[in-house]
């Protein structure tokens, strides 16, 4: 094993030497097999076309990247180009660590042209005082994946009985769960736990509450709605109905393993299914339906979120130009991102023609867009996300009173809005 390790090490360290290179760009991105593979190819092509530029791509797991990046940037050791998830961008933007976009290097003649290329709101996550600081790589909204076979096994007809409301989700899950000897073995549905801004806040919005007021400022509105939503989660959890729990195996994994009948995810998951569970994918016995809405609630779908490409403000001008033209090159290949990695760029040309690419169920995702807000990514987004995570875990697992949870959340949000 040692010899093998040394061999691999030597192999990975032998690179081709290049005389022409004058600008070397460091690109940090997150782990995402199909896209990483595509980008490696695009980088090669980009380097061929621009022999003076060399792009060095470093891949992190997404959980790590969001912690490492702010540290690296503040230490003045950040990469030249990176991607970052929308909710993590504001802290970096506030500190002035990233650069406004360079339209020319991107291949546009004016900012209006850039704006015109993207769907409404796609640039809002990287906008500050009207200046745009990044280019969206992809955006995601979630819908409900359903394993039809599981429905039939439970005596349900997936085409008509699929859940439309959260009340349905509970009711149907009760029928779908398999308990062996009292122990939960298969789940009907389970949430995507750490991503509370993406699914939980919209659930609250369905009930009329929110984390910001009409002016867009941080404020916990409509406590009743929050209490109801927290109570719903508590009922769902292992202390009550025991339909799911953050401590159980990730619902997406269980879905692929045939152990959960429903889960929430974006369009890209179709490809993951194809890649990691071809049996389920090829059986074609699955479908995708809209994000459920509380009975009588507002029609709010799961929040959509972008990943942006940004450029380090402290890189040299040369590198910045190279970086923007690199980003321009990648974003020109939005179609490959879609067909090869199922990444939907929020470029109008892609979104408007999504159905023409023949990706199954893409219409469901598109229809949801109208009811979907971009995820909250203003100041304090991460703190709110972490606080909600703490509270949901305590409500579901430790039996914290939902009313107390709401009070704690309110204190946290007030603290943030006063800063």
């Amino acid at each position: 094993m040692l010899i093998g390790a040394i061999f691999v090490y030597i192999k990975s360290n032998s690179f081709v030497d290049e005389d022409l290179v004058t600008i070397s760009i460091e690109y940090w991105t997150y782990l995402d097999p199909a896209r990483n593979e595509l980008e490696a190819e695009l980088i090669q092509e980009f380097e061929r076309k621009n022999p003076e530029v060399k792009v060095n791509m470093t891949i992190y797991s997404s959980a790590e990247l969001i912690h490492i990046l702010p540290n690296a940037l503040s230490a003045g050791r950040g990469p030249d180009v990176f991607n970052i998830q929308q909710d993590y961008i504001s802290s970096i933007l506030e500190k002035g660590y990233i650069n406004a976009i360079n339209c020319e290097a991107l291949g546009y003649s004016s900012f209006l042209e850039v704006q015109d290329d993207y769907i409404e709101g796609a640039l809002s996550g990287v906008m500050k005082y009207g200046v745009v600081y990044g280019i969206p790589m992809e955006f995601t909204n979630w819908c409900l994946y359903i394993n039809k076979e599981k429905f039939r096994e439970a005596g349900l007809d997936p085409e008509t009985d699929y859940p439309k409301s959260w009340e349905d989700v509970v009711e149907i899950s009760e029928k779908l769960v398999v308990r062996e000897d009292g122990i939960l073995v298969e789940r009907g549905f389970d949430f995507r736990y750490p991503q509370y801004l993406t699914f939980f806040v919209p659930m609250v919005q369905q009930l009329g509450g929110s984390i910001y007021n009409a002016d867009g400022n941080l404020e916990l509105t409509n406590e009743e709605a929050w209490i109801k939503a927290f109570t719903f989660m508590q009922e769902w959890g292992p202390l009550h109905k025991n339909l799911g729990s953050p401590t159980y195996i990730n619902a997406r994994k269980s879905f692929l393993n045939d152990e959960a009948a429903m889960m929430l995810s974006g369009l890209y998951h179709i490809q993951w299914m194809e890649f990691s569970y071809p049996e389920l994918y090829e059986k074609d016995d699955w479908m995708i339906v809209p994000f459920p809405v509380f009975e009588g609630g507002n029609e709010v779908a799961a929040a959509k979120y972008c990943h942006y490409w940004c450029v380090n403000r402290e890189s040299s001008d040369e590198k910045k130009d190279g970086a923007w033209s690199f980003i321009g090159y990648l974003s020109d290949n939005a179609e490959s991102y879609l067909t090869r990695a199922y990444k939907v760029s929020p470029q109008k040309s892609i979104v408007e023609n999504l159905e023409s690419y023949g990706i199954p169920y893409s219409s469901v995702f598109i229809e949801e867009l109208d009811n979907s807000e971009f995820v909250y990514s203003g100041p304090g987004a991460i703190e709110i996300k972490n606080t909600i995570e703490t509270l949901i875990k305590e409500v579901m697992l430790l039996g914290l009173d939902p009313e107390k949870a709401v009070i704690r959340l309110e204190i946290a949000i007030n603290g943030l809005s006063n800063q």
Partner: protein
Amino acid sequence: MNKFVGKITISEILIWAFLLILLAFVLVPILFMFVASFMDAKQILAMPFDWIPSKEYFTRADRTFATNFIKAIRGNNNNNIFFKNLFNSLVVALSCSVTTVLLASLCGYGLAKFKFKGRNLVFISIMATMMIPFEAIMIPLYMVTQKFGMINTYPGMIVPFLVSAFGVFQMRQYLLTFPSEYLDAARVDGLGEFNIYARIVLPNSTPVIATLSILSFRNQWDNLLWPLLVAQQEKMKTIPQYITKFSEEKLTDEGAMMAVALLASIPMFVLFFSLSRYFLGGAAVYESRKG
């Protein structure tokens, strides 16, 4: 007399029962790791658990007995970073154990066999660092490492663990019992002080060196916290990080998880069973502080 024998038997039975129950408790999780690395996720969590991997698993066309292991090595990114991470772990653990032995023996020798002004102060100060928990200084250390640009480098991963206070202590205790006559004889022969250390003290301290190097190898092999901070790039990560990341990722199934756990443990198992006497001796050397 009969009564006496009977008593022994009963107590012996009780002793054996107790020891065997503890043995089961200790070994079952390890045995579980072994068998589960040949199972798929469903069988691993089957109720009741079947200790023998099912035939179905082996006979399915898309699988071999090594499927989980291949997944574990490839990683979810198919980039085989496992080997690079394994290599990193070996580099870090080996470097730390070598430097620990060298520096600790040098210092321990100085403290045990020489009388100089401030010797006790040096000894007590070094012992006092044992009371500084690594967790209490990891953030300043991280800031310093970052300042020196040692993030994502081997030096950054190794330097804070070049030597341990415990190692100095062990070496000193051992060398206190080292016969001074040998050293004096060497001096009479005209051997220089450093040569005495290198040619007489070191070669005659093999047991404690073995124990010490194994212990520091093990500690670094197990270290998660520091690499988590300084080894941020995938190619610089260590095995504990690889496992942590592997378990965080969305596609990892339990079988592959156990396979990676098993693979990561093999180097330590090999070391343990081939050098068990020094492992078990490690505790004994600690006890020798009583003199």
